[in-house]
């Protein structure tokens, strides 16, 4: 079974802080994704990566960046956290279909 591990289930940070969300997968998948999930808006793609050191913008990349230095790890970075970035963040991986998800990080920005 694919295992996608997100480093924190719950996280509380302050406005203006730099925030790191980590995602690690154990299946050697090439593709990794970061989504955010908000009520009434569904899952929206922030960034994705097809390979180490490769990254592509998703639909809502503003205010975020990513890092993929190793194949198994994909980090989402909030450069200067704002209250409108309070959300559930989900990481997913993919090699052959379907995408597999972690259990999410619920991030609150105060």
């Amino acid at each position, binding site marked *: 079974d694919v295992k996608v591990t997100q480093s924190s289930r719950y996280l509380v940070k302050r406005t203006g802080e730099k925030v790191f969300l980590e995602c690690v997968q154990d299946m050697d998948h090439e*593709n990794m994704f970061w989504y955010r999930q908000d009520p009434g808006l569904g*899952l929206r793609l922030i960034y*994705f990566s*097809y390979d180490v050191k490769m990254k592509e913008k998703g639909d809502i990349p503003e205010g975020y960046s990513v890092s993929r230095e190793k194949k198994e790890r994909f980090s989402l970075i909030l450069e200067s956290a704002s209250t409108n970035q309070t959300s559930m963040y*989900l990481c997913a991986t993919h090699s052959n*279909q379907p*995408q597999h*998800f972690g259990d999410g990080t619920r991030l609150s920005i105060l």
Partner: protein
Amino acid sequence: EDQVTQSPEALRLQEGESSSLNCSYTVSGLRGLFWYRQDPGKGPEFLFTLYSAGEEKEKERLKATLTKKESFLHITAPKPEDSATYLCAVGNPTSGSRLTFGEGTQLTVNP
């Protein structure tokens, strides 16, 4: 631009009361239509992939069907443990491994 619309937004059923969830989609060539189940506080869990109109997949009390414009998730004689949010997503050949998700249907099955 791919679009996915799920209906209803929320559905309450009594245990044993069968029903269907709808996923309407617009896509420039379907690479696959995916159904996921999401429990509160958890990530989505994969259920089915459908690739072409007429295809059907079954798992326990769930059956997914596909036409050229929509997919249905039929739930037969549901139990309280089927309560969850059900998500539908589509991929197209030009988007690589990206998926477009619907907003989901929140299903509650009362005992």
